């Protein structure tokens, strides 16, 4: 690698990280705004999540008395995993830095590290709510994760690889691959998993603070100040990352397939538009959906799992 290539790689990675970080928070603001308007309320401004994070960074750090270093480390790990995935995933370009090693399975496991550490931190608070959130999140994760992995397998079979940039690029060069039944089944499963993993309706209600109904909010109840800001940023990044991957696998058009600044700018703009559209769809869906009872959620996820297994079988048969 020459110096120029390294510089380009750093620039591309930086651009993707910033668009995922800032864009993720704005996406949440956009979805909140849209939901409020649809429900007949005015709602906070779209950039409110950014203001919240800025405010939180200025506050004092507070930690529960008996917590250990795990509690303090969790927000950092959460954001770090999201940053690494944002840097190496094919979001704005199909040639991200370290793209050769951007394996779909690897990326899922890196993101999983973030959720595992957050679940540990929730237990570290020593409060009933932390344990409650952690237990529920792990139960849902234990069923959502397998569905996701099988969905990835279904998408990888026709491509003979689980390398993400290759999977996205194949969508550009062979559009018929996207419309293959195996891929469609796998992507629908992926969509269900995204809702579960990022705590959206109908699995978890992101806007509630009513103790007994919440999953994710219960886990991060004890965080305050800069730590809470990191958790909020990390969660927003993960949500927009997963959505970005979904839209690029579903409709890769617009993504930068050639090197060059113009292509990259177009890629970023298209990514923002596509992810915003996906967010709008989810927000509209959420207005008309009620939260599922906790013990009905596994049924939904099992549905996702079955879809993914069907996708694998279809991908094998329809070749």
């Amino acid at each position, binding site marked *: 690698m020459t110096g120029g290539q390294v510089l380009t790689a750093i620039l591309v990675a930086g651009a993707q990280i910033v668009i995922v970080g800032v864009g993720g928070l704005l996406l949440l603001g956009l979805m909140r705004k849209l939901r409020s308007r649809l429900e007949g309320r005015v709602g906070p401004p779209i950039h409110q999540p950014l203001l919240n994070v800025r405010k939180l960074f200025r506050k004092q750090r507070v930690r529960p008395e008996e917590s250990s270093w795990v509690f303090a480390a969790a927000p950092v790990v959460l954001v770090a995993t999201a940053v*690494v995935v944002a840097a190496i995933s094919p979001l704005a370009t199909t040639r991200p830095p370290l793209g050769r*090693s951007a394996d779909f399975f690897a990326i899922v496991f890196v993101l999983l590290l973030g959720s595992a550490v957050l679940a540990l931190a929730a237990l570290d608070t020593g409060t009933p709510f932390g*344990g409650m959130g952690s237990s529920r999140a792990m139960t849902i994760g234990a069923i959502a994760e397998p569905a996701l992995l099988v969905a990835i*397998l279904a998408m990888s079979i026709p491509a003979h690889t689980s390398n993400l940039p290759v999977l996205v690029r194949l969508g550009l060069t062979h559009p018929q691959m996207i419309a293959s039944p195996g891929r469609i089944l796998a992507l629908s499963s992926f969509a269900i998993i995204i809702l579960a993993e990022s705590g959206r309706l109908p699995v978890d209600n992101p806007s509630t603070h009513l103790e007994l109904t919440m999953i994710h909010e219960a886990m991060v109840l004890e965080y305050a100040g800069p730590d809470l800001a990191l958790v909020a940023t990390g969660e927003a990044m993960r949500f927009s990352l997963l959505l970005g991957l979904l839209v690029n696998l579903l409709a890769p058009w617009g993504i930068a397939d050639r090197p060059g600044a113009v292509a990259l700018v177009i890629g970023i703009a298209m990514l923002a538009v596509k992810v915003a559209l996906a967010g709008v769809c989810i927000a509209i869906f959420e207005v008309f959906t009620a939260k599922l009872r906790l013990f009905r959620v596994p049924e939904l996820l099992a549905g996702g799992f079955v879809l993914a297994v069907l996708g694998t079988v279809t991908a094998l048969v329809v070749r």
Partner: protein
Amino acid sequence: MSNLSLVIAATAGLVAVIAGAALPRRIRVWAVVLSTWASCVAALTGSLIVLHTGRSMVLSSSQILPLTGVHMVLDPLGAVFVVITAVVAIASTLYWIGYAGHGLSTRTAAASLPLFVLSMLLLPAAGSVATFLVLWELMAVTSLILVLGDQHERAETRSAGQWYAVMTHVGAAAILLALVLLSAHSGSQTFAAIRVHAHHLSPALRNTAFLLAVIGFGSKAGAVPFHVWLPKAHPEAPSPVSALMSGAMVNLGIYGIVLVGDRLLGGGPVWWWLLVMALGIASALFGALHAATSTDLKRLLAYSTADNMGLVLIGLGASGMFAATGHRTTATVAMVAALLLVVNHAAFKGSLFLSAGSVQVATGVRDLDQLGGLMTRMPITGAIFLVGALSIAALPPLNGFVSEWLLFQSLLHGLPTSSTAVAIAVPLGVAALALTGGLTLAAFVKATGVGFLGRPRSPEATAAHEVPRTMQIGAGLLAMACVALGVAPFIVLPALGRASQIAIPGTSASVLRGSKYLHVAGLQGVLAPALLAASLVLAAVVVVALRRLVHRRSMPTPSLRRAEPWGSGRELQTARMQYTATSFAEPLQRVFDDVVHPDRDVDVDHVVESRYYFERISVRTSIGDIIENRLYRPAIRAVRWWGRQARHLQNGSVHRYLAYGFVALVLVLVVIT
């Protein structure tokens, strides 16, 4: 030259046994440990030479002691298992130095431990049926003595020992039958001769031998439904022994299946390996589910051993199927993935069992519901357990992740196949692999979070202190191996490639290439474990630096305040209000109710005046092993019943005995004529 290493290993091991039996208590432990280390280092050196050169090491006892039938051949496949055993043994015996103050320091234990290690070191080098069986039996008996340890007065330990003794001997009988069948029809008892003759055997004989071997070795590897001894013996055994059993002994079950299936019989029809894969899927799911719902820390680890061995069997099964359908390169990748998982499992399960033992020494309890808050009280043990837990949950940048990735890749790679059976089995295998991964993560978040984080749930946990330094180092060595193997799996992959070549001949050793990127032959994707680890660390450092920067600019005196947890504004929060392991696993248990079948007892005392008010409610739940209850217990009851019926034959009357003798004589005469 390298032949000498096995002789040295055996001699040093025997010295350790004598030292353990003869020396006084003060110097016994150190003498045994030092000579066991000498034995391990010698075996390790020999195996590394074999792995490096790729040439087998042959040693026949007629060279040393005439008229003894010992025949040793150490090939690269066996050498991998010797290396694993040696490393786990070095770490566990180091740990034992500190542990001996709390038990396992009697003469019997001190003599059995090195003998157990020695038998496991030599077993993969056995080159003939007799040598193999003698070492196998030695391993079974010494491990049984160690399981009973110095707790043999406890009813639970005695029952565990009984189960273990029966299961291991039923398994040994099956292995004996399989190997004797093969050697009888080959006319020689050396493995080399059996290998040559194996192709001329009738299919029925080959099938019988393979099935018997799967039963025998499967019971050692803890494959469902032969796993019942595992969740009993592993928790009751003293922790260094648990680590040895789980990190080294169960692997030899895997070795046995590869030995008979691939080495001696040279692969087989697809259905053999479908069977192995089915066993693997059952063990993986069953083990993971029980690990997720267990509340006893060591029982949880034992079930997770069944789960991991199940994953190894899935890899073995896939490898055999690919080889049988002619995809030999893919078969080698799957075999390497399975072997890498065996190596990784030894590292993380060893460190987990050893640190669980430290917890038991420090607190006296194994029940997760009574632990908590240990991360601040035992920071080093806690960190070791955390590393082990994250590794076993296959999270990057630790070693479990690499083997999981490789297993996924080999299954993905094997999919374009012509065989329908393979095309159905592989997606099922992937689904099982994925589901197991999710459940394992839940189990180990529970074990770490409830056991080590939060507030202590009992006075014992509150009073816990860090254990002696040797115990920390012993467990820490294996935890460091987890990190090293996760960042640089390349240090073991060439050796595993050679070993797979032995199991599946006729392929190139370089199916996995690269030193920075892990490249699977024929696949586009690569994995860069070191780069991934480096970028994760870099990202974490940048995030911390940025947080400091922003925080410092806005706050004149950045400070960290420790406060009472908020808990939704609840006042007076006690440690008893925390989620316990039972409550943590409750949702999962409900989801998998049909498989787990928990027993639930609810006692309600009503207030005398009104049935609508309660005086006291007590709830007891317990989760038994459904296979033990539905399969083994009825069998045991049937045997008991048979025994009671047989008792009627003996009523003490001499006349009746004379009649028996007469009838028997008549029968014999009838048969003869």
